[in-house]
């Protein structure tokens, strides 16, 4: 169980996140939706340890991980697939996967096989440099790289950003598959429609606060959400 309570974060001189609370039950898919600048990315970056919160508490499986450094948080099984994918362009595909397992000791061969099974395209391109992949392939690599740390909770920041509609559909089906393998998912998306379709629970963020929450399937039918985020 992952829980955030009363989290406030200052970022770039403004109060980007104000007193938000939510939880992510084990094995679920939870999504935060909202417009650009609503504080979604800041929330994920704070959980990952890149940004320190002003107040509030982040608890994972009973342990307070507020304000710990990123390496500690990755070690605890929480990993972030950053916005814009951020794969290492001058590392090969295989090296990008290996670096995802940086903190692990022992054999990672099985995990590499597992990722290649999830994304056969990556296997074909194993020796290519990350920078030569297409946008969709880079997103697969970013997800695969995150999986290499054997996360219990994987956070994804706008995985569909800038991808063609068909590729977006692939990415979402992969998100479902990863979830079926037992990984908990916290997803933020501007593509609210897709996100709410896969999510068990959704939270709507506006200018740093959570304004609405509910089951994904309920939010998709909610009049306010439809107007604001689903284009009608």
């Amino acid at each position: 169980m992952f829980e955030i309570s009363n989290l406030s974060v200052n970022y770039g001189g403004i109060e980007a996140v104000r007193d938000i609370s939510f939880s992510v039950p084990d094995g679920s898919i939870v999504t935060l939706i909202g417009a650009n600048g609503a504080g979604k990315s800041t929330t994920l970056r704070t959980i990952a340890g890149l940004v320190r919160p002003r107040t509030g508490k982040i608890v994972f499986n009973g342990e307070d991980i507020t304000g710990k450094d990123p390496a500690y948080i990755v070690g605890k099984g929480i990993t972030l697939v950053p916005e814009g994918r951020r794969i290492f362009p001058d590392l090969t595909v295989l090296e990008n996967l290996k670096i995802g397992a940086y903190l692990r000791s022992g054999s990672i061969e099985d995990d590499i096989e597992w990722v290649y099974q999830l994304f056969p395209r990556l296997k074909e391109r194993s020796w290519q440099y990350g920078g030569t992949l297409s946008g969709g392939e880079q997103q697969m690599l970013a997800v695969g790289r995150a999986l290499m740390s054997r996360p219990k909770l994987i956070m994804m920041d706008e995985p569909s950003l800038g991808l063609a509609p068909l590729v977006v559909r692939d990415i979402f089906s992969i998100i479902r598959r990863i979830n079926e393998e037992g990984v908990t998912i916290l997803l933020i998306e501007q593509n609210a429609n897709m996100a709410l379709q896969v999510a068990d629970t959704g939270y709507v963020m506006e200018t740093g606060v959570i304004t609405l929450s509910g089951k994904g399937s309920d939010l998709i039918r909610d009049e306010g959400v439809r107007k604001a985020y689903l284009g009608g």
Partner: protein
Amino acid sequence: MADFFHQNLSYFLSGISVGGQYALIAIGYTMVYGILRLINFAHGDVFMCAGLMMVYFSSSLPFAISIPAVLLLTLLLGFVIERVAYKPLRSAPRMSVMISAIGVSYLLQNAALYFTGGLAKVYPEIPFLSRSVQIWGATTRVVTLVTPVLTVVLVVLLTLLIKHTKIGMAMRAVSRDFETSQLMGIKINRVISMTFMLGSILAAVASLLYFTNYASVTPTSGAMPGLKAFVAAVFGGIGSIPGAVIGAFIIGICENIIKGGASIFGIPGSGWTTFSDAFTFAFLIIVLIVRPTGLFGEKSVDKV
């Protein structure tokens, strides 16, 4: 042709040798730049400090102890400089870190001035390296022959480290993207320290080879070789290790060919040696006009 080489052999030999020494220093510049985008102005002075340490240690200790001690302490010096002068400025503008580097450079020079009293210190004769040898009629020291070989061996080892080890992979990742590296669980401060320590120990090796040839150390001894190594790194494409090495060899060789201008080009005159540095730099300016990013400069292609 053979005659020509025979006559001017000593210039070519010292060119290759000096090039190797510049290369070992240049690697420190290029690696630090690659990872922090910082021109570490103190690097030449770290090289000078290694030279001075050797002067003091060898006066009371046998070489078997003083040489490893110099290598180790120089490595430690690099580590401490990074921790004290650069790490606290990690999120400051790049210009501030550069000013801090200039500060460290003067601090080391002043400290050296304090300890030496401004006198040139005679560098010890390291028995094996200082011995004279004859090759093809030219008299030179063993160090001249050892330098290029040792340089190549160290560069190969370094390349293997960077290409094939976990820490090397982390260095490549950190040099590209701090934040994402952190998300992988890499402790970037450790990787940065490692980079400084590697650069410093190579500078210490360079100092052993360089000062054996030049025989004395002054507080400003690091300035010129440091500057030339830096220029070599820029010339090769700063951030690139093979670039720095090749750039350094080219500069070392050019410099010595120009010094030998009177006999190599057959134009007599006493200005060749005096102006050798000026000619070397003029040559670099021309190359950089043609290739502004240097020989192996990174032309990053990122897909966004």
